[in-house]
């Protein structure tokens, strides 16, 4: 039994390292923060972490297959722009005014109130998943390398986002914004459950930020079942040895499409949250690019090999949190924000170097090039 635990730790050393690194950094951060260890700081950090954590999960799935998805930031941006029309809380949603093309798109049948918001969320997530599904189809049926396929589709998704929001704007239902970006207590009082959050049993949980709850729920409800499905197993097998996976009779094409669809779904979650958090839609191209690159960095820090086959989305969440916490330090210590990319780069280099240590054990150097 102890043996089993030792094996599991050794096999997930990347994940363990990321968790320990995050804990150390975060405790240090809170200790140094004037209002450290308070719900308010936690809530603020949770909001800032969430979207990148989702994108890191999204990036993990193709990376496990030894592919890269360069469209995750674009999908996030596009879904955010859709959300700024669909989640206004008003019946009918906001009509799309696109004067330059003279197009008028109305969503007249869209219901208002809670049912409208729930439907809007579902549609946004479906759009994210559909974008990922298209990526998967291009990769599988177009026989195009993931990196180039998603570079192209990503540009298309950004194009759609610009089409929807030539300038930042739109609106998100105020209650929705309040309920999802604060603590559980605020959530309960907004949606009127647990006696508006005043129930005695609920008090010990009321301080927990909603984004952190979502960060536990989404992996638990989506990632864990996927990893234990045959398709999830196939994704790992493809990244490990695609030939052997094929010869073992695994559904290679379906697994690839599923992997990209899941990536689109996670990226959609990120975009949805970002729109809710900022109460607007913004087709911000530099931001989309930065999120994509940071998602790759998070995956690597979280212990997933870019060669595929090993790692997990859970590790990537911690990778994203490590990356974000580093930026938090710039706020409490008097460091020029211009130094931030430098520090992030050094941390990333260190993380990647640890991953490359295994190469030193290879006895046949020809294998390094296969």
């Amino acid at each position, binding site marked *: 039994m102890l*043996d*089993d635990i030792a*094996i*599991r730790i050794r*096999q997930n050393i990347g994940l363990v390292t990321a968790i320990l690194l995050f804990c150390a950094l975060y405790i240090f951060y809170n200790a140094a923060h004037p209002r450290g260890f308070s719900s308010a700081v936690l809530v603020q950090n949770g909001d800032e972490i969430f979207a990148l954590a989702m994108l890191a999960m999204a990036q993990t799935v193709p990376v496990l297959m030894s592919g890269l998805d360069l469209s995750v930031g674009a999908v996030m941006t596009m879904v955010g722009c859709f959300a700024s029309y669909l989640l206004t809380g008003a019946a009918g949603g906001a009509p799309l005014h696109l004067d330059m093309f003279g197009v008028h798109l109305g969503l007249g049948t869209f219901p208002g109130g809670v049912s409208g918001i729930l439907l809007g969320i579902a549609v946004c997530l479906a759009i994210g998943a559909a974008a990922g599904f298209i990526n998967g189809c291009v990769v599988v049926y177009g026989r195009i390398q993931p990196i180039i396929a998603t570079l192209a589709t990503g540009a298309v998704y950004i194009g759609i986002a610009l089409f929807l929001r030539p300038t930042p704007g739109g609106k998100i239902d105020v209650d929705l914004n309040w309920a999802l970006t604060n603590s559980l207590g605020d959530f309960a009082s907004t949606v009127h459950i647990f006696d508006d959050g005043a129930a005695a049993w609920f008090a010990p949980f009321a301080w927990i930020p909603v984004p952190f709850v979502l960060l536990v729920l989404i992996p638990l409800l989506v990632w864990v*079942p996927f990893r*234990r*499905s*045959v398709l999830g*197993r196939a994704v*790992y*097998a493809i*990244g*490990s*040895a695609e030939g*052997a*996976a094929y*010869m*073992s*009779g*695994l559904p290679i094409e379906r697994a690839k499409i599923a992997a990209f669809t899941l990536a689109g779904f996670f990226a959609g979650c990120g975009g949805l949250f970002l729109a809710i958090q900022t109460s607007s839609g913004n087709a911000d191209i530099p931001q989309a690019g930065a999120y994509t690159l940071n998602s790759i960095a998070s995956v690597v820090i979280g212990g997933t090999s870019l060669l*595929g*086959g*090993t790692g997990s989305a859970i590790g990537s969440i911690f990778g994203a949190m490590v990356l974000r916490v580093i930026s938090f330090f710039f706020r409490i210590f008097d460091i020029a924000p211009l130094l931030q990319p430098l520090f992030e780069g050094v941390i990333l280099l260190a993380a990647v170097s640890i991953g490359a240590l295994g190469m030193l054990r*290879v*006895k*046949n*150097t*020809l294998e390094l090039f296969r």
Partner: protein
Amino acid sequence: MPVADPTQSAFLELAGISKRYAGVRALEGVDFACERGKIHAVLGENGAGKSTLIKIIAGVVQPDSGRMRLAGSEVSFATPSAANAAGVVCIFQELSLMPDLSVADNISIASPPRRFGLIDAKAQRRRAEELLSEIGCEDVNPLRRVRDLPLSRRQVVEIAKALGKRPQLLILDEATSALTSADVEKVYAMLARLKAAGVAILYISHRMHEVEALADRASVFRNGRHIETFDKGRRSTADIIQLMIGRDIAAQYPPKPARNAAKPVLALENLCWERQLDRISLSIGAGEIVGLGGLDGQGQKSLLLALFGVLRGVTGRLTVADREVRPGSPAAAKSVGIALVPEDRKTEGLMLPMSIADNLAIASLDALSTGPFIDTGRERTAIQRAIARLQIKLDAASDAVSTLSGGNQQKVVLAKWLMTDPRIILLNDPTRGIDVGTKQELYRLMRELADQGAAILFYSTDYDELIGCCDRVVIMYDGRIVRELEGDDLTETNIVASSLNVDTDTAAGAAHA
């Protein structure tokens, strides 16, 4: 236990199976049958068609013609999974495991136990434990990643994976080659149980003592043809060797000059690496062509890679022209005058999309440069000389090297190294897959290079070629040099017998048979 098929008729029958790869005959008109409850050995030299035979049976490749019947009804398998579904399971030489997945994941990869649609990790682990204990290897922890297991344990996992598919016909292709002797005993016991339960077993092995210990029947293949099938004890080892060799028309080889004791250019002493090279000592003189023989995978390729600086952790002494060297990379090996024509022409020998000229010059760019810049004039002259010397047939040197035929591609690889003016030339099966005409040109060239003072170490899977080209042949078995053959001793019978590591008396019997 009673045999499942009471009529005792063949379980698997092949009739008139033929297969060609790019015009090269691999199998021709093969009729073959095996029965339930019998272990059937398949024997033959390298390239006799054994691998193609089992690939066809296991659904990896499709035959060009012929029919296959399983349990009386006609079948044709489009994929390995189709063959598995019919109860035909093969344990391949090249392992089919996914290194990053755990042992339990690998064993149940094709059809994992499920609960509520998701993989049931506990049941999967139990299944792995059961299967491993069936083989008697409970010590493998199903949680371990395959990557972290030694080769011998990986092979155990591979066997457990095959067993988990509940085979009716189990094919083992050199499946015990990497096992430790303790595990071999356990696998034998498992095979005996399967046999008693009525499973048909096809067993491919190069180890004669294994075949003698296990097999109920044996079939000998040669040059893609089924030669003979016989029951255990009907043929002596000497007979079997004779059947494997047959009589083939010899190719034309350039005459060998009389040898005079030349100073060794290359000398190895007690070279060891991992478990694949075991105290190799050998010296090659200037002007000498030394053959490396033996069955596939006995360490010959590792020896060439070790000399070329590719392997880490090699121990022992290596001297080139009386100076001790320790090349740590191909670049270092090149600088002391060693050249290697590698195993895989398409990935290790050439950069296929680059031009013929670029490929030719790539190893000698240092010599063709002035400062940091390549001297294009000198480069062009050198390339023209190389093309003329090897008579490479091409339209333009600026064409991609991938447009050339296999034989001409191999000439480019060789020419590339000749441009570095090497003292020691290592050849890893350079004539594989090229036409007879080009082969003969290569033989002539090898002798010419030797006459000019190069020392050549030549690994070939073709015994005929070793006999025709080499001054001396060393035979490797299990990482060791087991025999050195020279002069009149350099016969096919001796090579085959030494390759199988059977004693010389048996070999002598075969020679007179």
